[in-house]
């Protein structure tokens, strides 16, 4: 067997500005095509599946509202991942941070930390959001600390912490907070609900039945803040510098360990906030299945958006649609498959941005 060096990669000069956009869109389209082939191989009709996909997610305003509901946690987690990835920290632990955030937010109601009857709704919801963020950031502290102080692979740590967080939640919903033996807590009182569109159905009848909630506003505000951090702030400059060359950053007097921990905590806080919006805005209780792998999809969202906070908004809506549609589609792994292929294509296409590819044929080499 002889594998020669068939490609010659050369650092390209400036890739055109539109290239990242084109490669991202191309990767998504190609992922759908490849997944279609896999679907066809399993006997399904990919066109039917995809048209069903589209109808289920963008077919009506109601469907679109569902998409927004799914996009909300993806947006928050995607933003957190973007921040972490900007510093080349692989926070794969959004899932766990999400659960811990949801858990601490639920504690406001379940313990309860405040008098649910008398405290105004805005105060309860704010407290839940705050605790959600604290929960996520504390959980993010662990891998951040281990990475910063002991240089332990954060991917594995965050993944292990994901499993632990889910089990921790299970302990509470199966045990202490179980509602009559079911694997969930009691429904939260209305005063702990994030406002949602359906709440205003009286004033605007078109909103009736729409479940999109105020969490998306958190997401949009967070997008602006993350944008300001990355592209406008001194801190963002430091993050970018560390991400590009940690040795240079250290040489420039930047404290890498502190920033590693900090970034993990901020990233975790956003995931924790996502957990809070899910319990307070969607299911209104703590239960076992509050996440359909949001933590992992957020990774792909961030990567597909090329870590640009505003692109994260668009991509999370696209992936929200994917999640909505895949709820009702068999086999259930199809959305995973599309996500996996997309991510693969995205990182493969990065090579187009960084390098010009030339094929070298052996014949060419012995010219003359």
């Amino acid at each position, binding site marked *: 067997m002889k*594998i020669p060096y068939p490609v010659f990669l050369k650092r390209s000069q400036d890739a055109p500005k539109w290239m990242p956009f084109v490669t991202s869109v191309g990767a998504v389209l190609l992922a759908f095509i490849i997944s279609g082939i896999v679907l066809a191989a399993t006997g399904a009709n990919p066109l039917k599946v995809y048209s069903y996909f589209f109808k289920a997610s963008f077919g009506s305003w109601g469907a679109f509202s569902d998409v927004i509901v799914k996009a909300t946690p993806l947006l928050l987690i995607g933003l957190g991942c973007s921040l972490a990835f900007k510093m080349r920290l692989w926070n794969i632990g959004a899932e766990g941070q999400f659960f811990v955030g949801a858990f601490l937010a639920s504690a406001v109601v379940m313990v309860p930390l405040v008098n649910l009857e008398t405290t105004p709704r805005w105060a309860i919801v704010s407290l839940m959001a705050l605790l959600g963020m604290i929960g996520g950031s504390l959980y993010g502290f662990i891998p951040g600390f281990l990475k910063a102080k002991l240089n332990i692979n954060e*991917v*594995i740590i965050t993944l292990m912490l994901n499993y632990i967080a889910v089990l921790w939640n299970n302990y509470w919903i199966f045990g202490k907070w179980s509602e009559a033996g079911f694997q969930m807590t009691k429904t939260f009182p209305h005063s702990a609900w994030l406002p949602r569109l359906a709440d205003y159905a009286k004033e605007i009848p078109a909103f009736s039945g729409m479940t999109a909630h105020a969490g998306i506003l958190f997401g949009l505000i967070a997008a602006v803040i993350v944008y300001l951090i990355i592209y406008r702030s001194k801190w963002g400059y430091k993050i970018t510098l560390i991400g590009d060359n940690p040795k240079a950053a250290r040489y420039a007097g930047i404290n890498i360990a502190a920033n590693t921990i900090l970034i993990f905590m901020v990233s975790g806080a956003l995931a924790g906030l996502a957990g809070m919006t899910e319990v307070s805005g969607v299911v209104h209780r703590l239960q076992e299945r509050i996440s359909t792998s949001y933590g992992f999809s957020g990774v792909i969202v961030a990567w597909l958006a090329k870590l640009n906070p505003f692109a994260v908004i668009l991509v999370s809506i696209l992936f929200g649609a994917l999640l909505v549609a895949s709820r009702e589609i068999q086999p*259930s792994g199809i959305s995973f*498959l599309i996500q*996996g*292929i997309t991510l693969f294509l995205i990182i493969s296409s990065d090579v187009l941005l960084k390098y010009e590819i030339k094929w070298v044929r052996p014949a060419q080499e012995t010219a003359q």
Partner: protein
Amino acid sequence: MNWIEIFRSGISTGTVLLIAAIGETLTERSGIQNLGVEGMMLVGAMAGFKVAYQSGNVWLGLLAAIAAGGLLSLAHALVTIHFQADQTVSGLSLTFLGTGLALVLGDGLTGMTAPVIPSFTIPLLSQVPYLGPVAFANHNLLVYVGYLLVPLSWYYIHKTRPGLHLRAVGENPAAADTLGVNIYRTRYLYTFIGGCFAGLAGAAISVAIAPGWYSNLTVNGQGWIAVALVIFAHWNPWRVALGGYLFGVLRRFTLDLQGPRLLFGLANPFFFNTNLVFFLQMAPYILTIIALIWGSSAARKKRIGSPAALGVPYQRGERGL
């Protein structure tokens, strides 16, 4: 509690980690880190079970699992070796891809039964007190294969010519390249071999140790634990074996803790409060974190590093101008 049984089934469980981790050790020794072990194991478990179920022949299933894991790993090899993509992200997407593929192709397999790898007892050796019943009695074939893998892979890495090349490629690819070792081919080869091992490890679950297909719960994080185990073991097959079996035993031990009413003469809290079982289930993951912390600080003390070129793409010619 039946200690013999705990150790016996611990070794059996540990074999899964052992096979996957030895494969990953070979891959990482060549300088490629493949975090997609979980995905490859799932695909292997699915393929192994599906083919065994459909053909009725477990050996065919095993082959299919090996091929499936190996093929999937080639995607990682292509992206990281030729395209020089970040190995962390690529490994992660491999996990997604593997999970997705396994779930889609494994649709409808849940609840089916397929033939399993035969178990047998080794005569004479199984008569050895303590050790015999633990290590040589009523194990499936893959457990015994695991015993052989450890010394063989160690010998291969340290005492053979291909092993010498493997280490050279992982430590200093430029040096190996100037001496005519084909870096790309070596890295493709060992990434592929690592994938084959991961596929086999997946099949070791679905057609041998815990037969059946339970969608992504089949592997349930063991791929990640295997990756952690490699770091903990400092890329040494003997330590992989030690860690893998220890893990298996502890895992089994924590499961068995729920059984007895009395534990060391005291009321067993896990018996009286079944919800505490969630903490027992956390044990492997917490142990992994502890093992990583311990392993990395031990490595720091003994100055054992990862293969020097681990995670660094090799490209000839960009330098040297």
